[in-house]
């Protein structure tokens, strides 16, 4: 039995917002794969929950807007994202990233909304969403607001979301994925059921002849207390021949990152991973874009 004092099953997004307003201590639960673990560990004794698990009709699903933006409902599971034909066609790197979380049963339940709202740096979808400059659409009693993901993470387990607000959509504007190819590397001790020691997501746009880097977007998980981009690396390699960019990107990224030592790995090891894996991620991203590297 979970140590829960009450569980309210919301019937709509509006109903969930009302329930959160009515109870300042209530905790929102979606797939539950973070919240239920915390309860099991005794970290939320006697909590009251507001469940949006059954709001699939309003909040689950992936669509391509007429203007080409990709819209992801926050209740879409990791599995939904990975197997979505729209994601496979337009943003395969995001589906590859969500396919690395946990194991199959976890991916059938854990949601992409929960992954970004939980606010942890190791979240497998987070670095790719950072690289894509995703826009998070949030709804509360006063209506909707749009938060660029660059302004989302406030600290460990802290995101730009008020108590009575819900994430209702993740938006990937067309210009942020169109013409880019990407690659995500999750470095972990095991190839399944493990949390990233470091995550790197790299998007690249190449010149016509596939020899030059036009633009790179490089993002990390676990290189900082929250997911982050590396502006230094992105600036350092723009316009460079591909092999030069691959050789330099990792060193440049070291200017931005600030990893910690944890039981999983030391700061020094994570720095080495940043340097090494950035180049590898860029190489793979460029290969997917048709470069012969």
């Amino acid at each position, binding site marked *: 039995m979970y140590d*829960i004092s009450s569980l309210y099953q919301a019937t709509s997004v509006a109903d969930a917002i009302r329930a959160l307003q009515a109870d300042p201590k209530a905790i929102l639960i979606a797939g*539950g794969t973070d919240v239920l673990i915390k309860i*099991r560990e005794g970290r939320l004794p006697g909590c009251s929950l507001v469940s949006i698990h059954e709001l699939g009709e309003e909040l689950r699903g992936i669509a391509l807007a007429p203007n080409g933006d990709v819209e992801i409902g926050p209740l879409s599971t990791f599995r939904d994202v990975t197997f979505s034909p729209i994601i496979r066609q337009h943003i395969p790197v995001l589906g590859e990233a969500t396919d690395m979380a*946990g*194991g199959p*049963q976890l991916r059938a339940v854990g949601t992409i909304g929960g992954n970004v709202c939980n606010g942890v740096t190791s979240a497998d979808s987070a670095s790719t969403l950072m690289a894509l400059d995703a826009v998070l659409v949030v709804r509360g009693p006063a209506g909707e607001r749009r938060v660029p993901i660059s302004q989302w993470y406030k600290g460990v387990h802290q995101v730009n979301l008020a108590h009575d607000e819900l994430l209702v959509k993740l938006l990937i504007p067309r210009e942020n994925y169109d013409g880019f190819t990407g690659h995500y590397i999750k470095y972990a001790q095991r190839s399944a059921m493990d949390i990233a020691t470091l995550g790197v997501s790299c998007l690249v746009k190449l010149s016509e002849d596939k020899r030059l880097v036009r633009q790179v977007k490089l993002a990390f998980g676990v290189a900082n207390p929250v997911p982050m981009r590396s502006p230094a690396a992105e600036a350092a390699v723009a316009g460079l021949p591909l092999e030069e960019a691959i050789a330099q990107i990792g060193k440049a990224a070291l200017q931005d990152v600030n990893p910690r030592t944890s039981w999983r790995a030391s700061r020094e090891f994570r720095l080495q991973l940043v340097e090494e894996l950035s180049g590898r991620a860029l190489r793979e991203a460029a290969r997917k874009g048709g470069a012969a590297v």
Partner: protein
Amino acid sequence: MMEILRCTVNNKPVEVGIDPRESLADTLRQRLGLTSVKKGCEVGECGACTVLVDGVAIDSCIYLSVWAQGKTILTVEGLRDENGELTPLQKAFVEEAAVQCGFCTPGIIMSAVEIVGSGKLYTREELRKLISGHLCRCTGYENILNAVERAVQEAHKFVGKEE
């Protein structure tokens, strides 16, 4: 506080009083006596509690029973062939000696039901990934993979799908 859960369990309609704080694993084991559903870790790590909800393998220890309202649940107790015997998948587990202590077996079987039911063929590597949400402390996984591979191939002969 009790609630009524109405759902389909192992092909039968079920109505059962549940406590909204309980996991689906608890409901299945304690209220419905379906003890093939094992509790290993209770935090989604080991896969021993895997059941199918609407055809999809999930860890029932981190799934609240109230979410199962109106859904269709399958556990190992609901598996049998037309003659009431073991299914070809279960037979493959027996014949490939994929079972030692058996604690992980019902969970893996349920993941395999979904895999085999897709009617697709998979490489050994793909199968490894598809059962990576299960821990087995006994077998070393090789015989389990042999069994799943065999069942996948047998099923493919009947309902083969290409992808």
